[in-house]
Each structure stands twice: as structure tokens, then as C-alpha cells.
């Protein structure tokens, strides 16, 4: 469905995208995971035919993003990161407008948006600017879908949206995917990687890793222990100072200690922490999550370049 080869884009001295290549299959949710400044928005703007790449090429459904931009615009649904609907039009007016611009009607494709739009119906006469964050996000999704695109481009749909509304939004995306739509979505929330079929971890315009989320976390090379005590701030400092521990960061109520020394056991960490004067100490084996992987890959990139 989507094929990107060797795309680069610079703004002056800053390389926003540095030789990016990947492919997205039909009916797949592909996630671009990375922090602000990683290059996510530049990638979306190129695919939405709004920005020209310096190098490389991208094709969507066989159409080139530069040469065939006019035809392509009917095939993609683009939801930019910043809320970009008309704030002083109502919910229904916004939807009608986007349908009209694409030469279709709400009725023609209503089936596609029905499960989402039904939730907005009670507010259909409200101005879009007066909607809550979660509702705005749902309306923007409807407007991006109203011309029945083949590929949905969602640039950080979850930013600034609370965790519950984000979960609901992801449920909708998975339903759309199950209906056959292909979705490229970006997010700075790393835990959302687990909800994608495949992901690319993006940092400073480069892809650090690309695979299914399960395979990325399975490829984490070193053992991890999760530890907690009554004083987490000191626990992190103490574990960093422990011989054999490469790194230690907070992960929710536990801290993850990444080990260089594979012979260390959880009992060794327990004893060490107790000797440091910690109370209520708990240590257990842990699996790497996507953030562990991101941190490890980031550190590798820094040492190499």
C-alpha cells in the first residue's frame, strides 16, 4: 500500500529525515514511534503531498507523492497533529464541508464513520472549537474518513488527550483496520506501540529499529530486574552505583535495572539494596518494554555518532 525509499529532508543544517525507507502492507496499522523532533511530522507532510522530499521517493497505492499528488489526495485521509477543523463551524457543518470538498456526501460513506459519528451526534450542532479534546479527535477522524480513503495518515492523534480517550480512539483504529483500512499513525506515547501491528522507532530523523512490537522487545539484549523500595529516588541512585548494573530508570512503581553482569541474581540486588539501608525492598525479573528498548537504542546511537 505504502512504499517509502530513501527519503531525506533537511531544513537548513537540521536533518529532519535521514534516508528513511519502509513499507506498509494493506490492512496494517504501522506506528511511527518517537519524541518531538524525531521527524514524524515531516514524514506525514511528505506523504500527504504537502512537502517535497530532498531525496528519495514514496508511493501510495502505486501513485507517486510528487508526480501524482492530485490523484493521490483523493486516496489518503490526513489528520494533522494540530486540530485543523473549522473551530466556528458546527460538528455537522465541518463534516459536510469535508465531504463536499472531496465531491462526496455524508450519506455515501456514512457506514464507514457511523460507529464514531454516532458518539458525536448529540453534539452535532455544537461549534467544533467548543468540543473536548477527545471529541475533537473523533470529529477530525470522521472528516479524514469521509471520502473513503485507502490510507489513513494520523499524525499524533493522541497528543494532549487523556489516557481513557486515547484507549477509545485506538479501539476505533483497530475496528477500521479490521474493516480493511491501512493506517499510518505516529505517537510519542511509547506504550501505544503495543497497539500497532508493526512499528518504526524514530529518533533524530533516523529509524533505530523496525519490526513487530513483540520482536523489538524480544530483541533487548540484556537482563532486566524490576526493583522498588520505600525511597525510589535513592533506590535509582544506589542501583546505578552497583557494580554490574549498566543503567537504572524509573518505570512506574518499579525501577528497571539493566544488567551488564549476567551472573547477578535478584537476591544479589535485594541484599545490596538492604545493605544500602532500603526498606520494603522488592526485586523481580522483568521483561523489557518498548521504552527500555528505545532508551537502549538511543544510547547506542549517541555512542556511534
Amino acid at each position, binding site marked *: 500500500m505504502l512504499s517509502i525509499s530513501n527519503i531525506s529532508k533537511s531544513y537548513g543544517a537540521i536533518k529532519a529525515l535521514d534516508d528513511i525507507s519502509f513499507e506498509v502492507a494493506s490492512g496494517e496499522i504501522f506506528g511511527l514511534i*518517537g*519524541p*518531538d*523532533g*524525531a521527524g514524524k511530522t515531516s514524514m506525514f507532510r511528505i506523504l500527504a503531498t504537502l512537502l517535497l522530499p530532498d531525496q528519495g521517493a514514496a508511493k501510495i497505492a502505486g501513485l507517486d507523492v510528487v508526480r501524482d499528488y492530485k490523484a493521490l489526495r483523493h486516496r489518503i485521509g490526513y489528520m494533522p497533529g494540530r486540530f485543523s477543523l473549522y473551530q466556528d463551524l458546527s460538528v455537522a457543518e465541518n463534516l459536510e464541508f469535508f465531504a463536499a470538498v472531496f465531491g462526496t456526501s455524508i450519506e455515501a460513506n456514512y457506514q464507514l464513520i457511523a460507529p464514531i459519528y454516532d458518539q458525536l451526534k448529540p453534539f452535532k450542532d455544537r461549534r467544533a472549537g467548543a468540543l*473536548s*479534546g*477527545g471529541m475533537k479527535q473523533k470529529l477530525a477522524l470522521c472528516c479524514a474518513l469521509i471520502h473513503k480513503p485507502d490510507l489513513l495518515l494520523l499524525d*499524533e492523534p493522541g*497528543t*494532549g*488527550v*487523556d*489516557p*481513557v*480517550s*486515547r*484507549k*477509545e480512539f*485506538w*479501539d476505533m483504529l483497530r475496528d477500521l483496520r479490521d474493516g480493511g483500512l491501512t493506517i499510518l499513525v505516529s505517537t*510519542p*506515547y*511509547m*506504550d501505544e506501540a*503495543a497497539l500497532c501491528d508493526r512499528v518504526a522507532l524514530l*529518533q533524530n530523523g533516523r529509524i533505530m529499529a523496525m519490526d513487530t512490537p513483540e520482536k523489538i522487545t524480544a530483541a533487548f539484549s540484556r537482563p532486566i530486574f524490576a526493583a522498588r523500595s520505600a525511597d*525510589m*529516588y535513592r533506590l*535509582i541512585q544506589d542501583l546505578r552505583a552497583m557494580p554490574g548494573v549498566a543503567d537504572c*530508570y*524509573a*518505570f*512506574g*512503581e518499579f525501577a528497571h535495572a539493566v544488567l551488564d553482569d549476567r551472573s547477578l541474581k535478584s537476591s544479589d540486588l535485594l541484599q545490596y539494596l538492604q545493605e544500602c539501608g532500603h526498606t520494603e525492598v522488592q526485586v523481580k525479573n522483568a521483561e523489557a518494554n518498548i*521504552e527500555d528498548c*528505545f*532508551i537502549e537504542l*538511543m*544510547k547506542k546511537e549517541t555512542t556511534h555518532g
Partner: protein
Amino acid sequence: MDKVIVCENLSKHFGPFKAVDDISFEVKRGEIFGFLGANGAGKTTALKMLTGLIMPTSGRAEVAGFDVRQNPEAVKRRIGYMSQKFSLYEDLTVRENIRLFGGIYGLKRAVILEKTAALLSALELENAADQRVSALPLGWRQKLSFSVALLHEPQIVFLDEPTSGVDPLTRRRFWELIYATAEQGVTIMVTTHYMDEAEYCGRVSMMVDGRIAALDTPHLLKKQFDAADMDEVFRKIARPDDKQKTLKSGKK
């Protein structure tokens, strides 16, 4: 125990809409207090009242020893504020930003010079002092912005989604900075959409429809709501009706 925020039956109505509806809580000196809630739950309105930017409809709040209604300016002088969206002037240099905010807070020139030197050395930014803020990596900008919010030695610092969009390493380093600051006795009021960060707070309040629906340590909240993590606590509080549905669609 030192209380730096005392909030009693605080309400803010916009016409018939009760944005904040009768909330009461206290925050102690040096505490890291998480202020959570869904979009539109009333967090921002509550924070605006506590920072003296809007007047309550009813109830009272005392922040850093001053009443927000009677002495909003005294409150403002004793608090710091940082958000991800607006913090520093990007086309001023690091040094210029420190001087500007020092001046706004009414610090004397000699104090500003002294603070500038101390801050640049603490953040290891001596070599970047005359660079524009826009040229700094996000992580540095964020630390600088936090330090600038602390320039006038406030008793409380309000952090509004300070880590939104930041990489996982920088996010964790930032929280270590928060911990270190709280250890010095500065009170931290923080909002976040990252639920792992809710675990790093001493206590957490959850707002739903203008009210505080729950307030406790993360540990006790998890116990109270029979939840594995704060994410689940949040879901159970924010959407009690479709508990089953959201649980089913949760992780894996």
C-alpha cells in the same frame, strides 16, 4: 506539618456549568502532588485559581500562605510555573532568557548575575549560554525552563504536562530533577497524561466532572480500586460505566 496549599470548597462556575465543583484538599511542603483527570474534568480551571489567574466563584484557597482571592499578586510571587507549550523565548539566548525572567520576577541585577552563573554551571550549559534557545536539544530546553521557573525561589512550582512529547530518557531525567527539587523542600504540583508518571507522585488526585473523585498515594489508590497500575485506576475512575469494555480493550 507545613501546608503550602489549602483548598476549601473551591468552586468555579461559568454560567450554569460547574467547571470546578466544591473541591477541598491540602498539599504539604516538599510534596510531589499529581493533579490528574480526563480532558475537560476541570484541572486547568482549578490550576488557574490556585495560581491567582482567575477568581473562584466560591470557597477559598490559600497558596504559599496567601489567599488567592485577596492577595493574588502575593501568590504569584511565591510560585513558579512551567508548561511544555510555553516556557522560554526561543529567539532569545539562554542568558537572555534567564535575565528576562529574573527581571520579571523582580530580582536585583546582582542577584540575576549570580543566579545565571550558578544555573549555567548546574545545568552544564556554560558553553551554550549565548546560543538561542531554539538551537538547544529539547531535553536541555526543558531543564532550563524548569530552572527558570525556580529562579525566584518559589515555594511551589506548577508543572503543566512538563514531559509531553519528550523521549523516554529525557522524561526520566526530568523526573529525577523533580525529585531533587522536592527534596530541597519545594512543593511540586504536576499534571501529566503519562500514567507511569502518576506513580512517581507522593499523592495523586483524580478529577472527574469538576470534582475530586479520588485522592491518595498511588499505592493506596491501586488498592482502593483493585487495579494493577495507575492506568487502570484512571480508567476505572474516569469511565466507571463501561469498566468492562475498557478493561477488555486494555493491554494485550
